[in-house]
């Protein structure tokens, strides 16, 4: 088991180095990716500054809280981009063209390879900038944020990231059933939009759905709550359960999907 983990970590590192080399070949893409990130962040800040010019707080989230919420949103998004965006987004294309064969023939876990093959290395720069931004915003936050909050936040953020992967992977693998599901990326983007708004706007049954079946609240809002308002064992426990459920389901769906795969032009 330990050897296997070490082997996969080493494999991931090799894939990262390979992706970095590829990305550096196309420096304009590298800079372009950063440019898009900056515009995306700026627009989101602008959107919320317009909203908060009419209101002091949305539920418990004040303007100060929402600025930190946004940085956590960007951080989660960048983490996702870094690890998975270059892969899951292309799964449909690989399936339609039969390129998936190359992944299946390798002597490694196929789900690992289709999830981690291409790493968007430019996201490292954004990750560093966003981490610095988050620490600096939390340092000047009106309430002291203890180290315990940070520790719980990192765990919660990681769990949210796994949930995101699970949701996105399940949507992407639906291409095995729909034959050509080129809009899966668009669909997951639209679903994930619910995670980019503070959870205090969701109430009643809708909130319950977003905490369970479509667990968007668990991706960004809960980590932010844990960071700002302190660790909550119920939230962390629930995140862990949901993350496991989605991870296991992604595994089952992947295996079932592969049984339907007919190589090129399937």
């Amino acid at each position, binding site marked *: 088991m330990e050897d296997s983990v070490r082997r996969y970590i080493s494999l991931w590192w090799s894939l990262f180095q390979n992706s970095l080399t590829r990305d550096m070949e196309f420096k*304009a*893409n590298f800079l372009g990716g950063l440019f*898009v990130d900056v515009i995306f962040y700026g627009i989101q800040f602008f959107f919320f500054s317009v909203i908060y010019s009419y209101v*002091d707080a*949305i539920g418990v989230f004040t303007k100060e809280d929402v600025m930190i919420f946004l940085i956590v949103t960007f951080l989660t998004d960048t983490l996702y981009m870094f690890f998975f965006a270059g892969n899951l987004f292309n799964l449909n294309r690989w399936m339609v063209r039969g390129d998936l064969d190359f992944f299946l023939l390798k002597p490694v876990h196929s789900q690992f390879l289709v999830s981690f093959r291409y790493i968007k290395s430019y996201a490292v720069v954004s990750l560093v900038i966003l981490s610095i931004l988050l620490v600096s915003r939390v340092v000047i936050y009106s309430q002291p944020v203890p180290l315990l909050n940070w520790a719980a936040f990192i765990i919660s953020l990681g769990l949210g990231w796994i949930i995101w992967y699970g949701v996105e992977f399940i949507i992407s693998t639906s291409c095995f059933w729909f034959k050509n599901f080129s*809009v899966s990326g*668009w669909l997951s983007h639209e679903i994930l939009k619910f995670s980019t708004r503070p959870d205090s706007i969701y109430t009643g049954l809708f909130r319950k759905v977003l905490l369970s079946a479509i667990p968007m609240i668990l991706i960004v809002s809960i980590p932010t709550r844990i960071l700002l308002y302190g660790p909550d064992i119920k939230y962390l426990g629930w995140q862990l359960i949901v993350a496991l459920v989605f991870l296991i389901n992604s595994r089952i769906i992947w295996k079932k999907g592969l049984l339907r795969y007919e190589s090129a032009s399937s």
Partner: protein
Amino acid sequence: MKGWIEKYLSVVRMTWIQTLEYKANTIVGAFAIFSGLAIEFLIWKQVFQAQGATEIRGFTFNGLIAYIFLCMIVGQLKSSWATSIEMIESIRTGELNKYLIRPVSFFTYHFMMFVGHNSLFYIVYTTILILFPIMLPGFAFMTNLHVGGFIMALLLSIYLSYAIYYCMVCFAFWFGEVRSLVIAYNISNIVLSGQIIPLRLFPDTARDIIYLTPLQYLVDFPVSIATNQLPMELWLPKMAVSFAWCVAMTLAGAVIYRAGIRVYGGFGA
């Protein structure tokens, strides 16, 4: 002229057939509108409740939601970023050659493809728009004049949006990577054209700057006509300005294309 129309109508027909193969686009597109609207509804509900206000800058809550609903539909109808990415790829990979050796215009051909690809959206959204006065009576399309004004402004918006994208696409002749530019414009356009927050709710300085650009004619203008937020005496002058932007952007696109085609190598990048 007849031949020209037939030629490009056949492009629309061809892409229309292709589009029918991918009906999922329309379903996801409709989901995008309703999910986006649900989020806006919940945010603005909180804002109105927290303020205890019945009106914000002339918008009642229902009026605002009706406005945003229409904005989202118009925003999606005019967005041609997917076509733009295809055009950039054809310049990057040398596929543009096939347009150069045939009697077709790169601009018009792709515009017709864009119309063809969006045709399913047009049908679905037209149905929604027809149902709109029944679902939210009194908030939009009060008279036939409003319907006519909206359609005119919408057509100008679709063309103007395409012409702006085209200008950006043509920079691919010099810079291999302009997809980022198109995506960045697309992201900012969603907010800055008033697609999810009406321009009237923007801070004054930001709004004044946006009014100097063609962005207000992309979403805010057609929707303001439909929802009777714009006095009728301003319709024609604003349409004239919108038309002038269309001409200016078309000319700018033609100039950039002509300069770009001179440096085009005709081989894959």
